[in-house]
């Protein structure tokens, strides 16, 4: 009897740990969607591809795909920076010329960029699933950091969680206590007024893309390591799910995206663990639909004021 309860609770705890890990990754990606949406009201569907790019860059720099290999930390840092730059490039090439165009045009462009980037990755890296060569990953990552009975928390999970929390905190500080973050929040409310108060709107939008894409790239590497699998379409599903997380939390709200990512990750893992693993995605979306039915603007969403 007692052992049964103990087994039950250890299963629960293990699912909790896995769910939080997955949720923190979804949150990292969802933040990128929500930031861009908050500032220029564009759903950047190519954001999932930036995440995929992050995973591939991490893989390539570690495995020596480009002809040279980098140490682990440096490879991660370089991938994040390149992803940030790629996000800015994406904005400049694809979205900036359409800033004054109808919103639908930019949305279609976003989908187009997503397809383009996916195929570019296919062209460069090929379609097969790649995994990180064993020797390039620090060996301790695979070992358990914490053993509570049957519950295993691996070092990789610890690293993922601490990285995610650290990045979210840094983002919070930047958005709330820096001139660039303040300008982002101002542009989200009134672009013209912000520009008249001396804010270079285009530049601040570029910074927004850089921050969001940097986080997305970081999430890509973490996921690549977690599942040890990198492939060109990985950004599509993760992107859709993170977008769902952003909507669940209220698109445009950063705390909402974080909470939404967490909820979706937990729903997916618990649904997979207790109900049926083949329906885990469906259960995650069902949770999202339930929340949206009750609160259409999402958990932290505000009623959009129509601009006359």
């Amino acid at each position: 009897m007692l052992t049964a309860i103990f087994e039950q609770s250890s299963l629960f705890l293990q699912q909790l740990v896995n769910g939080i890990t997955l949720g923190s990754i979804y949150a990292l990606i969802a933040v990128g969607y929500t930031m861009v949406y908050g500032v220029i009201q564009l759903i950047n569907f190519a954001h999932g591809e930036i995440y995929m790019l992050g995973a591939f860059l991490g893989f390539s720099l570690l495995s020596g795909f480009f002809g040279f290999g980098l140490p682990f930390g440096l490879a991660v840092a370089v991938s994040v920076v390149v992803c940030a730059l790629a996000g800015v490039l994406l904005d400049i090439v694809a979205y900036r010329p359409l800033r004054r165009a109808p919103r639908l045009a930019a949305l279609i462009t976003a989908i187009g960029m997503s397809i383009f980037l996916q195929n570019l990755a296919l062209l460069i890296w090929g379609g097969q699933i790649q995994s990180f060569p064993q020797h390039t990953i620090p060996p301790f990552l695979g070992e358990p950091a914490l053993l509570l009975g049957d519950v295993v928390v691996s070092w990789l999970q610890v690293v993922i969680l601490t990285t995610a929390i650290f990045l979210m905190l840094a983002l919070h500080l930047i958005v709330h206590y820096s001139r660039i973050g303040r300008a982002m929040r101002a542009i989200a409310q009134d672009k013209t007024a912000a520009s008249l108060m001396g804010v270079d709107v285009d530049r601040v939008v570029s910074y927004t893309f850089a921050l969001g894409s940097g986080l997305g790239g970081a999430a890509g590497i973490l996921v690549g390591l977690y599942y040890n699998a990198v492939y060109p379409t990985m950004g599509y599903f993760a992107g859709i799910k993170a977008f769902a997380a952003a909507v669940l939390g209220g698109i445009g709200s950063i705390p909402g995206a974080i909470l939404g990512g967490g909820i979706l990750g937990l729903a997916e893992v618990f649904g997979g663990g207790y109900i049926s693993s083949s329906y885990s995605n469906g259960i995650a979306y069902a949770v999202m639909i339930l929340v949206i039915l009750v609160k259409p603007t999402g958990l932290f969403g505000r009623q959009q004021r129509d601009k006359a």
Partner: protein
Amino acid sequence: MAGRKTGELLLKAHKVVKTFGGLTAVKEVSLEVRAGEIVGLIGPNGAGKTTFFNCLNAIAGPTSGEIMFAGHSLVSQVSPATRLLVFRLGALFALLSLLWLPLALGVVWPETFFRLEAVLALSGLAFFRIYLLKPLSHFRAWSRLLLLIFVLADGLWAVVWLWRSPDFAEVGFFSLFPFYPLLVPGALLILIAAPFFLLMFNLPRVREAFGQHLRADVITALGVGRTFQNIRLFSSLSALDNVKLGRHCRTRANFFGIVLALPGARKEERDSAEKAAECLRFVGLGKQLESRAGSLPYGDQRRLEIARALATEPELLLLDEPAAGMNPTESAGLINLIRRISQAGIAVLIIEHDMKVVMNLADRIYVLDHGELIASGTPAEVRSNPLVIEAYLGAQHAAAQA
């Protein structure tokens, strides 16, 4: 504030015209503001006062006419056609340089120089070239130098490529790459285009294009602050954050400084908080620093807008109906505030419907009606001008008075 002598010419608008399609909203309006002055701009509803303000800060630049502010022209001198031409040339060149990316992805060239260039390209050289389009479209001086470097580098690449392309054809990667056949015509195109780009620096038409293009934020940085007729605060930000935003163009911390939280960026943030608090105390909102801007009372929101504009350190402050919707006590406070702003050395150009406020404050008044300047002079002169009475009260009334 900037140590200008009182009476020095600050703003000079000359025959400013603004048309929207067939409608002329502002017709040849000329106006001057001198340092230390408070100048009123009045007129019946729809006379074109706010449109004129929008001409001043490039929100909707004038159709024709000249506006000078402290030695700078506030009108973009670049014709849209020229801007488009330069922009397209820049875009073409940036796209051409993308042709080298497949070479870079190969990383197979034996020469160290090219391997270095290849790694550079991989880590974002193409990005920087496209990023170049932005300063190019704003015609900043340093973009010319950068462009020159790229033109020379690409010219070199093209020569080497054409000279040695048979050797490279044997390298498997290039022959597999689908864009490979494009490289030869691409290199030729670059060789043809490069001299034109070099010429760009001497062609008068293009030099003119590099002259000046103004955006609203650049004009604000030059020293023109403004408030709005219908309050446009960032309502979900705190009062302090609203004013700190005004400091944006007076602060320098860049992206990396902020992301890495370098000491310089942190100190600047503290300084700007202090300066913003000072501006808020100046307008009498020293106690509401942390209140949400949107939840402040109406009169306080008006004053917060003025504080935000003051934080941009203007030499000229444009106030668009600051007393609208205020009761007599509040507008008396406003008159006092504008006086103090003027005493701080900031020239004020004020649009106002409340005659008591404007007659009380202004050194000189300009009167607009149907987009045309119908009178100007001291408040007393304007008040007794029959044209002004006619504009406000109708021709019959003017005749009865005379």
